[in-house]
């Protein structure tokens, strides 16, 4: 069996695992939508000109849930249950195992994004050219990669209950300091400095740049920062994986 085939089968299994746990999957899907509906639609000033802004940042927010909770904290649970130990002795190449998890995570993010875009277009008054929608979708989908890797680092480094706590903290940090709920330019100076250290901040700026907003710094710079975070998290996953072996 070639690697692509194996990746497909493994991803399918991961997808079924996530999908057949509705108590886990549904909150992950609904939470970002509920947040967006509340802050982006119900409480937003109509005609304030910020419709696209909110959707760009909430799209990044939508990628946090599946990546951190379903797959990060999820792997900690699998490890505690003894599922990971059994996987580690099978001849499944490690990159395929983790790749399948990331792809599934992106799949879930894609579902949330579809619902979010529909909500934004119909009820949120967001009007964008078709190309911009597609570019935005690309940024939002790819955002799941660094965040998913970060989730795996947490999941591989802590036991299930500790991982849940740490994940909540990471989730909050990425959402608040990344400027996904409140724009970063409203923060005091020291908080703005902290934002620079959040991958979510750079991802949000990228999404804003794509949606035609003026941003602080260059899109290229934020892209490079996001890539840097991705590589650093990937290295951290490799390290955590070896440690999780025992």
């Amino acid at each position, binding site marked *: 069996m070639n690697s692509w085939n194996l990746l497909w*089968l*493994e991803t399918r*299994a991961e997808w079924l695992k996530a999908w*057949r746990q509705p108590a886990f999957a549904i909150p992950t899907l609904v939470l970002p939508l509920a947040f967006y509906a509340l802050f982006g639609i119900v409480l937003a000033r109509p005609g304030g000109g910020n419709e696209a802004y909110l959707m760009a940042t909430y799209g990044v927010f939508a990628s946090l849930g599946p990546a951190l909770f379903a797959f990060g904290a999820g792997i900690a649970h*699998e490890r505690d249950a*003894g*599922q990971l130990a*059994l996987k580690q*002795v*099978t001849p499944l190449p490690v990159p395929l195992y983790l790749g399948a998890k990331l792809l599934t995570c992106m799949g879930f993010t894609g579902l949330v994004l579809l619902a979010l875009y529909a909500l934004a277009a119909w009820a949120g008054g967001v009007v964008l050219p078709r190309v911009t929608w597609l570019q935005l979708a690309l940024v939002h989908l790819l955002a799941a990669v660094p965040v998913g890797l970060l989730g795996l680092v947490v999941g591989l480094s802590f036991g299930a209950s500790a991982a849940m706590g740490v994940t909540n903290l990471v989730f909050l940090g990425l959402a608040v300091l990344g400027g996904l709920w409140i724009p970063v330019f409203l923060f005091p100076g020291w908080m703005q400095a902290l934002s620079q250290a959040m991958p979510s901040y750079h991802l949000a700026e990228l999404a804003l740049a794509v949606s035609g907003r003026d941003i602080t710094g260059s899109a290229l710079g934020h892209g490079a920062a996001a890539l840097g975070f991705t590589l650093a998290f990937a290295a951290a996953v490799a390290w955590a994986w070896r440690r999780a072996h025992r």
Partner: protein
Amino acid sequence: MRTVSTPSKPPHAAPPVHGLGLVRRYGAVTALAGVDLDIQAGRVTTLLGPNGAGKSTLVGLVLGRLRADAGTLQVGGHAPGSLAARRLTGAMLQAAALAPQLTVHEHVALQSGYYPDARPLADTLALAGLQDLAKRRYEALSGGQQRRAQFALAMCGRPRLLVLDEPTAGLDADSRRALWQAVRTLADEGAAVLLTTHLLDEADALADRVVLLANGRVAADGTPGEIRSRVAARSLRCLTALPLAQLRALPGVTAAEPRGRHVALRTLAAEETLRALLAADPSLAELEVTGTSLEDAVLDLLHKEAA
């Protein structure tokens, strides 16, 4: 000229497991203190020993889940835990589980895809006795059925090395016997089976070879018959009024333990012991003399090891 088709599997030069002078420490505790282990194809090798003897550590080394502090170890000529070694290995771990949301069929199909030369799915299910449970989710299986599903995953890839760590823990008598039979079939197909157990009847029923571990060393290594014959002792069982201390002082007696209403004696000189016993206790009743069971032999060997 016609070409002769070569057999589908090339002859394997490297032994399934080849280990020399294996040492593993946990802080100040030495779990393995220099163990040599070679495992042959087509045979069931059983690691036997009390808790803490080093069985699980040795299995951890073979699977590449632990690293040895000293010594060399190869699995089919490859480093343990490497992808090449894992392709030759199937394993059933002690405290393991499968994803509860997937069905037995989904699990076996997925795992079979990992191996280059997997067994047909229907054969795997039949060998593990799971034909009727294929569509059931793992979470809906009983404890024993879950163990069988784990066994199916361990052997679905036709591994050259099958590692079974306490495979029958939690199984009822029927399931245990069925699993023994399946293990036998796999060994007859040519797999090298490495099995840990603390159940002596399991070792006696299944093993071609018993490796007895005690305190991180190999205390004995041979067929169950050889292990038994290394201990010339016999067992006596009787109903007697004599206190244990007096029984232990009888000629030839190495051990005396209460067994319900009876007392069990181990002796190296059955006739002398009997004569002395009958003389000392005229009320002696329900006397029974038996040969050495594997359990008795192992206990004697462990006793010697500790002395």
